[in-house]
């Protein structure tokens, strides 16, 4: 817990690539992760002399779609501008971006932290092109060099800027998680932070509680996961608090999060302030965003996370919390609904997904779509338990096998073949054998110790290699021990 004499002010800038086939201003493929260096380039994205950009309509529509999902205003007129600066990953020496007339502004994102609702304003969502990637090479002894791969240069990129409304690291993390879910839901971005498809920078400052002016803003970069965002912001809050408490002044600077060392490091400030000299992009006529066009995009919006969550509560009777977690990612929500559609009871399906399944996935930092288990597998497993064919414990074992196998099929098939023993004859035999072999426990049970019954049931399950129906066993034990 941090002393509360300062108010924490956090704003987030999220860059999200748009899942288009081709780049923002040329027809090169956006599938840059798989391609050899510089294999997805052309005169336009290489910035060759004489090349000219042409706007990708789908990227514009994706931006408007995102803006609508974030409750933004969409002005009738928009344009692109040049942001001029020099960097080796920026082939033209300028980035085509948006400055004073972005596609959207003034929206908001709602979230919940520990059950408490919150809302963060969204200043703007605009569209620009991504830069290339730099690798640093060279031995320490000789002059270092950089290697440039321009496959990523020109990929469409949305910049989503929040108002400085966030007050804790928890809120910041929650904001990014919700935003990511929305972007997945509307199909513009898969939410992959590790690959750089979704990137987040934070602006963190402190001010005395009650103060109106903002404190010195520190930009924090290089946070590649939700956890990193949380840890980095918490670290910065502590660091800034210590500086201010010690009577020091904070430098307005950019700091990089070092995940391995768990701290932010000042990035060497530039010799001089960059002046981007924005001016309207002369190679691209401006855009008139008609209301009809916006309506067409709005009407094609899929169900958004908040609406889906509410529907899961009302349609399936799930708790708000469970619905919330299930809808936190589109693949998770879809897995759940498909499992239910195939016949599994909603609450059971939810329990499996939020319980064992999530546990295994989280341990490996995987997502549900990474697993070989498909909704039909889960639905069938649940069916086996419900019909009494296998016990719950057996089901858990089976699920674990299914999860770790390359193909869940065989384990599921094996479970299907295993019949639970419910027939009394076989069960009676087992019960009598256990009674005979465990006199002390039988005595304890007679004396009133309920745990002894549990022990006996356990022994019977062992004997039956897990195939006995526990309810039947319980009844039989009670009958025979009197």
């Amino acid at each position, binding site marked *: 817990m941090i002393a509360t004499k300062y108010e924490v002010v956090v704003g987030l800038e999220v860059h999200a690539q748009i899942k*288009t*086939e*081709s780049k923002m201003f040329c*027809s*090169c*493929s*956006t599938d840059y992760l798989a391609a*050899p*260096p*510089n*294999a*997805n*380039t*052309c*005169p336009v994205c*290489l910035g060759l002399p004489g090349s000219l950009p*042409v*706007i*990708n*309509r*789908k*990227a*514009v529509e994706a931006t408007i779609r995102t803006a609508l999902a974030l409750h933004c205003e969409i002005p009738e007129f928009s*344009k692109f501008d040049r942001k001029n600066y*020099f*960097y*080796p990953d920026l082939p033209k020496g300028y980035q085509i971006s948006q400055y004073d007339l972005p596609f959207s502004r003034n929206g908001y994102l709602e979230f919940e932290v520990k059950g408490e609702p919150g809302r963060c304003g969204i200043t703007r969502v605009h569209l620009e092109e991504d830069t290339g990637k730099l*690798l*640093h*090479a*060279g031995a320490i002894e000789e*002059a*270092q*060099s*950089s*290697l*440039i*791969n*321009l496959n990523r240069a020109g990929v469409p990129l949305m910049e989503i800027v929040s108002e400085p409304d966030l007050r804790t690291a928890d809120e910041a993390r929650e904001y990014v998680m919700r935003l990511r879910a929305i972007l997945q839901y509307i199909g513009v971005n898969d939410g992959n932070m590790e690959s750089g498809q979704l990137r987040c920078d934070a602006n963190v400052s402190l001010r005395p509680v009650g103060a109106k002016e903002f404190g010195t803003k520190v930009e924090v970069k290089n946070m590649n996961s939700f956890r990193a965002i949380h840890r980095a912001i918490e670290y910065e809050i502590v660091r800034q608090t210590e500086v201010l408490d010690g009577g020091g002044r904070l430098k307005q600077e950019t700091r990089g999060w070092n995940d391995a060392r768990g701290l932010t490091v000042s990035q*060497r400030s*530039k*010799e*001089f302030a960059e*002046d981007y*000299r924005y*001016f*309207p992009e*002369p190679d*691209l*006529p*401006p*855009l*008139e965003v008609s209301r009809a066009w916006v309506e067409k995009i709005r009407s094609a919006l899929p169900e958004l996370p908040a609406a889906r969550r509410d529907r899961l509560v009302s349609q399936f009777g799930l708790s708000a919390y469970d619905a919330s977690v299930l809808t936190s990612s589109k693949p998770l929500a879809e897995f759940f609904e498909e499992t239910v559609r195939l016949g599994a009871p909603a609450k059971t399906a939810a329990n499996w997904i939020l319980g064992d399944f999530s546990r295994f996935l989280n341990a490996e930092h995987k997502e549900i779509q990474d697993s070989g288990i498909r909704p039909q597998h889960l639905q069938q497993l649940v069916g086996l338990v419900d019909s009494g064919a296998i016990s719950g414990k057996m089901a858990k074992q089976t699920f674990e096998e299914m999860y770790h196998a390359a193909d869940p099929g065989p384990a599921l098939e094996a479970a299907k073949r295993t019949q639970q023993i419910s027939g009394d004859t076989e069960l009676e035999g087992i019960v009598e054998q256990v009674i005979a072999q465990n006199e002390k426990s039988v005595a304890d049970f007679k004396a009133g110790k309920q745990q002894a019954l549990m022990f006996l049931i356990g022994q019977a399950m062992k004997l039956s290699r897990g195939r006995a129906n526990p309810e039947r066993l319980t009844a039989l034990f009670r009958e025979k021990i009197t």
Partner: protein
Amino acid sequence: MPENEPELSSDEVRHVARLARLGITPEEVTRFRDQLRNILHAIEALNRADTSQVPATAHPLEQRNVMRDDVSAPSLTVEAALRNAPSVEDGYFKVKAIQE
């Protein structure tokens, strides 16, 4: 157009050259400063025009919403993309490192 502004200074010339990544010798700073001052004087005439009632023309043509379909097409070969580069390594463009 700034009126009654002091003359363009050498510092400003150096600053502008830095923004534009143009190496510049001290002699060039002075020479360009003087030449640019003359040019800026000539440009001052812009102030004669009353532009209070007109919008800026950033795009001479009237067309709007010029866009293309999201279809990918073959890129240049890596060889063609790198052909003009003075220095390459393993398919990458190679440059000196930034040391700020």
